[in-house]
């Protein structure tokens, strides 16, 4: 009984009382981190979701194989925006190899989980990051 009432309190304190998303998702959605563009980016990544028509752009500033700065722009649902924000937090300061190892599951976990139907949104964020790094590596290999 005590357990149950605790749960109710937790739910009602979340930003929207919405049971769809965790408080963490809502925080990142309402105040996304690293949002914007990098004018002189070293690489830009793009990912799109053909199913619902959402897109994400990810901008990287790279120094000595390490992500110095990272920004994003996303057209999509709250989960897409929150995972975009979270993936930039996670990748910032990491080496390219480390950043490539970030999985969409890790991003979702950091957000306290996503509803099953929204897992594909986290793929968007992870793929935009991967795309940006791969674009960079391709260009630098050619050099």
């Amino acid at each position, binding site marked *: 009984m005590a357990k149950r009432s605790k749960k109710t309190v937790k739910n009602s304190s979340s930003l929207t009382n919405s049971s769809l998303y965790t408080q963490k998702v809502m925080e990142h*959605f309402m105040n996304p981190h690293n949002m914007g563009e990098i004018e002189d980016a070293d690489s830009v990544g793009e990912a799109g979701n053909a199913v619902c028509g959402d897109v994400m752009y990810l901008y990287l500033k790279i120094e000595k194989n390490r992500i110095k700065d990272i920004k994003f*722009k996303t057209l999509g*649902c709250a989960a*897409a925006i929150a995972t975009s924000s979270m993936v930039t937090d996670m990748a910032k300061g990491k080496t390219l190899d480390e950043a490539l190892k970030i999985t969409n599951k890790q991003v979702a976990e950091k957000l306290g989980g996503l509803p099953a139907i929204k897992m594909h*949104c986290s793929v968007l964020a992870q793929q935009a990051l991967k795309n940006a790094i791969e674009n960079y590596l391709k260009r630098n290999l050619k050099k």
Partner: protein
Amino acid sequence: MRRIYADYAATTPVRKEAIRAMSPYFDKHFGNPSSLHADGRIAADAIKNSRKIIADIINASPEEIIFTSGGTESDNLAIRGIASSNQKNGNHIITSAVEHHAVLNTVKDLEKEGFDVTIIPVNKYGEVDPKEIERAITKKTILISVMHANNEIGTIQPIGEIGKTAKKHSVPFHVDAVQTFCHLPIDVKRMNIDLLSVSSHKIGGPKGVGALYVRKGLEIKPLFTGGPHEFNKRAGTENVAGIVGFAKAAEIANKEMEREKRRLEKLRDRIIDSILSSVPGSRLNGHPKNRLANNVNFGFVGVEGEALLLMLDSMGISASTGSACSSHNLSPSHVLLALDPDPVKAHGSLRITLGYKTTEKEVDYIIKAIQISVKKIREITPKIEGVTTY
């Protein structure tokens, strides 16, 4: 934070008067309307009075009103009921592309069972052309089902004209009036309507109760077997309190209908005019004038609807969206797609529906909140030529 409810097309708060009217039928007058004793007779009388109230509002006779569990059941009973009892006359059903799922999924189910279904497309405002209905009629047509007004975009259909066509060809005509009952005048005789679905929770009544009008003499097979309730058309002990609350809500809503319609139209147009003139890249979905007095449906370029909905939610506003991201199958609403097949346009849809408790002050707050939210979301949106630019 005080919340502003702007989702009256989804459901409405139950009117105080309805709650008060229902209350005795839970405990004091708890009898089963089928019982012969005094307790039963009191309950039966309550249903009788309620039936008369609903019948009078649409110019029907009480024996033509079947109480159901709501709009969905009424739609199912009408369509399946006609389909099952008319198999000897034909197997063709005509409906429109913008019907509620309660109708659309029912006819699609019948299609699997071997019925022929013609789905009439709509114009860019969501209107059905009665001539197209007439052209679709064949010797085998056993039912035309068209909604009175659409729940998403508010577009009102030419029911009177379609009724005339149906009568001319002697085809039974079903109207889903869930969004218009007690919001627009309905006269089943003058409009040549044979079956009409209504629901209680859209007019300030409780959820889980509704009615189907079935024109006298029209045969429909019941959905389930059981006792002789509701003139042998709907077995099961009646939801007495629900029916009483439904009738009370209908009585009040019907009395206030004209005045409320004029009041809401002003509020609706205030939102539409303010947003269209102040937010670039905004668009009105549905017809500019021929729409429900309480319905506003916008599209915003470069804005995803679920994000917009949650942003408004965080500002205390309850609204709705037809965006793909908010749906379970990740496809945009079939209604928006019927108006314009470009899924990008359905992306930023926002539905605001007003009701009897909505005030001018609330409307002004809603306008401001939309302006702020759209701006905030667009700051996150990447610029993509032809997709997010306007």
